[in-house]
């Protein structure tokens, strides 16, 4: 089993390499450069800038020096935030994004899972329709609309009441500033997890071994919690792998709306500013994250479902 995970981890390395390679050439081959600002830069200045960032070296040389720096944890200088290196920006933004993402994920599991299971246990009842309807709303309303609605409700509508919440800003991670962004980030995941948990619970409850457990005379409660729960959890865990990637996408929206200094916002600004090094840095870090998350999911999967074999 461990050799399987070692191998999976090793496959991650060429994957990352492929991502770096692809990203690098995509950025360099694209029309338009980071210095195409509103005011045209005089040619002499442009030449100096290009020399400073080694943009005139042969492409392969640029690539290998980038790769070499990358291995030393140096993502290069940011083109737009002139006083910062990309490594500094990521070091600043990553913890913020991870904290919010993890909180959202934990909340999503804590809320979504019970909702889904309750809906499954009373299939086709009013309770079930309520949960399913709520889940559907969470899925079909885009994050940025939900964010604006909650800002309007809690930041503006409830102004002056104890329920007022800051409509944006980070304030060094004060608790009140986290509530809205984390909620907005968590909502679609609550919805998806509830839906998946409901579907898989319904299917599991029809399985023969559940019927056997019931026939043995075990109380319904025990059957659900001890026998069905574990199997019903498997699809939810499977979903958590890709969820990390969706979480990153969600953080781009949430961090932009609420002006939170996380890597999602840096990525968006970097992309719009053609800040090559920043965009590549964030993409590589994000990819590494998704790879590790998928690996963890695979491991948990094996514990939940004994039929899974690692070769």
């Amino acid at each position, binding site marked *: 089993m461990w050799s399987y995970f070692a191998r999976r981890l090793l*496959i*991650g390395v060429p*994957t990352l390499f*492929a*991502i770096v390679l*692809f*990203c690098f050439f*995509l*950025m360099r081959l*694209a*029309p*338009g450069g980071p210095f195409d600002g509103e005011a045209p830069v005089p040619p002499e200045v442009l030449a100096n800038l290009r020399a400073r960032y080694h943009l005139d070296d042969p492409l392969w040389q640029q690539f290998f020096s980038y790769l070499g720096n990358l291995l030393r944890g140096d993502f290069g200088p940011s083109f737009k935030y002139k006083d910062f290196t990309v490594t500094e920006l990521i070091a600043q933004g990553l913890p913020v994004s991870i904290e919010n993402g993890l909180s959202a994920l934990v909340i999503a599991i804590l809320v979504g899972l019970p909702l889904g299971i309750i809906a499954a246990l009373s299939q086709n009842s009013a309770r079930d329709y309520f949960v399913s309807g709520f889940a*559907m*709303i969470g*899925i*079909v*309303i*885009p*994050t*940025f*609309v939900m*964010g*604006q*609605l909650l800002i*309007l409700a809690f930041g*503006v509508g409830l102004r002056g009441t104890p329920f007022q919440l800051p409509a944006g800003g980070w304030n060094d991670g004060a608790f009140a500033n986290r509530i809205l962004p984390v909620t907005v980030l968590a909502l679609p995941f609550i919805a998806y997890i509830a839906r998946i948990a409901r579907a898989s619970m319904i299917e599991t409850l029809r399985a023969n071994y559940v019927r056997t457990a019931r026939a043995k005379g075990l109380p319904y409660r025990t059957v659900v919690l001890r026998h069905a729960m574990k199997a019903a959890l498997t699809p939810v865990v499977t979903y958590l*792998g*890709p969820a990390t*990637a969706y979480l*990153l*996408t969600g953080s*781009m*929206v949430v961090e*932009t709306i609420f002006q939170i200094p996380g890597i999602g916002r840096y*990525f*968006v600004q970097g*992309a*719009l500013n*053609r800040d090559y090094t920043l*965009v590549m840095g*964030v*993409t590589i870090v*994000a*990819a590494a994250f*998704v*790879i590790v998350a*998928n690996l963890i999911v695979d491991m948990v999967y094996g514990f939940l479902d004994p039929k899974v074999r690692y070769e």
Partner: protein
Amino acid sequence: MSSFNLASLHGEALNAAGEVEGRSLWQDAWRRLIKNRAAVASMIILGVIALACIVVPYALPWSYDAIDWDHVEAMPPNMELGHYLGTDSVGRDLLARTLVGGRVSLLVGLLATLVALFIGVTVGAIAGFMGGRVDQLLMRLVDLLYSVPLTFFVIILMVMFGRNFILMFLAIGAVEWLTMARIVRGQTLSLKNKEFIEAARASGGSTASIIARHIVPNVLGVVIVYVTLTIPHVILLESFLSFLGLGVQEPLTSWGVLLNEGAAELQANPRTLIVPAVFMTTTLFCFNFLGDGLRDALDPKDR
């Protein structure tokens, strides 16, 4: 009593046996689908919305990009002037914009899903049917792409090559095919040892023709379910790109672009958000209900 009924039913069946037509899987599925009220209602609503988006803009007094110069501000609904749902913040007719935006959103959803469908079914069917090395290679590629934050690349591409309608659905389609490939491969694996495939091979069918004529038609059921669930997903992704300012170019619009504009001035003119939001969420709701209904109809094990 019940035995009498059974007997008479049996008799009827015997009488009819002479002219009974076989019911295909599809007819069965259709029967189950039209019994599902939510799915039928969704189909009707989707049809109405799609038709409205295509036809109604021609019949409206205002074009989606025409500015009402006498009222260059958000105006509440005004029947006399022909702004049935009011105007946006620069005086363009909101209904016309929402319907034209629907055209773009639905088209992106449809085209991107077709791209995903094409790549996913091809890769999945080939991997499943050929097995061995080819399967290994293709599925490792899918695994690899799964662990890449692909949305990042869609954004990078959109930034690099500009806001381009064709690029948008190609890029989204190229991201959404992975799950399709996995599903189709799984189905193909369970099909490829069936007798009718063997028969096709025995009668001299080439691998390509067996995949195209026997495997693909038989995986369509699962694929259709997934298609109905992918379209709303793509529409949401389009709205996300629009939020980043990477959607279709003004004055053309889409639901994502409209929602983004509306959300920005939510406080001043909530109507500019509500109108497109109602259209888009209704559409997404309906696609999801239809997808669930189709799944139940095409998957008899769940009855």
